């Protein structure tokens, strides 16, 4: 009898714990749904062709858009990629293919540390490095800041993907007399290509939403991008500027900008994961 009661109590406790866990999952999804629906509904109302193509209007005037910010973001991501991708992929290749234990361990450790550095500190760093030396805010500085942020991610993902390529392929290639460098590029990297591409797309998705590192590198601008050595507008910074402003019209535009930004980031993130899923199935 007593065992029965005990058993029932334990089962009830188990059930309760189970419900708590389910409840947490539901609770976590609420903000997700709320944020996305707010972004969609608030943003869609202000999203129109003007918004995508026009420059911001001066304070007090309604209308205008974030055309320059969208273009600016693309430019910044482009500069970041030009810097971050080759260095990241080559560093990843070094970690995966050349096994000098002490250096590899150190590089891996520092790459992980670098990816944990708060983004605002990266901004401060690039400010000291480039803005002070060039004596101006510039798109280049912003691109470099974003590039530094994407570097560790790309390197580690590349390393992981290259490690997944079986050694038998390297052996087969070397046994044919194919030199080591060619083996790594044309056999190993090529075989891991899909996975590396996914890592790249995720890294780009991450940096395209970053604001803090741009605040004092690329700064902001109300005109179309003029040059690599000039400040440039970007979507996240523009959203921020408008969000904290006192103008309702600008708040609307901030939502619209968020919609564009979230769409960009989600398409890249989700798209890359689906693409990777397909590639993984092919390689099997």
């Amino acid at each position, binding site marked *: 009898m007593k065992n029965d009661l005990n058993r029932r109590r334990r089962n009830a406790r188990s059930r309760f714990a189970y419900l708590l866990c389910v409840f947490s999952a539901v609770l976590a999804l609420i903000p997700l749904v709320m944020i996305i629906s707010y972004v969609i509904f608030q943003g869609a109302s202000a999203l129109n062709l003007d918004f995508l193509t026009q420059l911001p209007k001066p304070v007090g005037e309604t209308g205008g858009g974030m055309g320059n910010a969208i273009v600016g973001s693309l430019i910044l991501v482009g500069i970041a990629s030009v810097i971050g991708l080759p260095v990241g992929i080559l560093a990843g290749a070094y970690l995966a293919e050349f096994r000098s234990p002490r250096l590899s361990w150190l590089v891996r450790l520092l790459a992980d540390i670098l990816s944990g550095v708060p983004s605002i500190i990266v901004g401060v760093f690039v400010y000291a490095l480039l803005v002070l030396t060039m004596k101006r805010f510039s798109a280049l500085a912003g691109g470099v800041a974003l590039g530094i942020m994407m570097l560790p991610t790309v390197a580690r993902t590349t390393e992981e993907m290259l490690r997944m390529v079986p050694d038998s392929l390297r052996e087969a290639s070397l046994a044919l007399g194919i030199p080591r460098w*060619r083996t790594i590029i044309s056999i190993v990297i090529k075989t891991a290509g899909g996975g590396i591409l996914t890592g790249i797309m995720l890294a780009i998705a991450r940096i395209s939403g970053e604001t803090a590192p741009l605040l004092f590198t690329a700064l902001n601008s109300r005109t179309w991008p003029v040059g690599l050595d000039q400040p440039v507008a970007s979507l996240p910074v523009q959203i921020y500027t408008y969000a904290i402003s006192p103008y309702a019209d600008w708040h609307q535009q901030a939502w619209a900008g968020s919609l564009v930004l979230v769409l960009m980031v*989600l398409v890249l993130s989700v798209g890359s994961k689906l693409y990777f899923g397909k590639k993984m199935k092919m390689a099997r």
Partner: protein
Amino acid sequence: MALPLLSLPDNVKKHGRQGSGKLGDPIFTGLTFAAACTILILMALLVYMLFQDSLPSIREFGLGFLSSEEWDPVKDIYGAKPFIYGTVASSLIALVIAVPLSLGIAIYLSQFAPRWLRAPLGFLVELLAAIPSVVYGLWGIFVLAPFLGKTIEPFFADHLGGIPIFSGPVYGVGLFSAGVVLAIMILPTISAISRESMLNVARDQKEAAQALGATPWETVRIAVLPLARPGIIGAVILGLGRALGETMAVTMLIGNRPEISASIFAPAYSIASVIANEFAEVTAGIHMAALIELALILLVITLVLNLFARLLIQKPGSGGLKGKGRA
């Protein structure tokens, strides 16, 4: 078979020497090595420059910087205490909210959820991590903060206002709102890593508990959680690190007032926020050095946490060097 020993094998003569092979390897090795060293150089440079550029402030204020509450750009006197407080307090609030929820999700996804639900649900939680910080801030300003200011916070203030941490006027923006939004932002990190740790617990541990007649929850409590604990702690530490360094959403919600008050509903200021707000408008004096010293403090804290977390989180399959010692 006597062949002149000085000649190359016919085969090599036939195909000729591939010049690129001789040069290609050293060049490629050099390039990859340089790329790997770039990471080293960047980190070293970052730490060095932060330290170098904060020296004026370090020399001026010394250790008192950490305990001084005065932040006055006009008088050129700076103290870090309010910002350290704001940073730590908002992150702790975030942890208090996020850790139970994250663990609940991690347990659900790794132990209880039906197989078909695991991938989609996990994916949705990951989606929270993909939303840019500034969008969180925007939503926070216009949706979350007003909501909290009108419902939850007054509830606490009215009923529990006697307790110091719930006392004081309620603005909507403040430490608490920043903490809530941080909680949402670090939830995917903590839950994903905790979930990994739980999945890594060997199945026979669970089976042993089940064979003893443990209920599902008891199985989790006895067999899974203890073994997953290092990973979970690591996950929490990583989440904390993220929260400490988070800039935009916090800047937009914390109230940006460099004051320390007992109440969690009061406005405050975090290190990342003050840097974000004041850096571009620094004029003269040691303002910038002080801001950079704040950045250095933040960097050191997040670095230490990061290293600590790495020690605790064991990734399966890493650490084995391929190709070593082939028999």
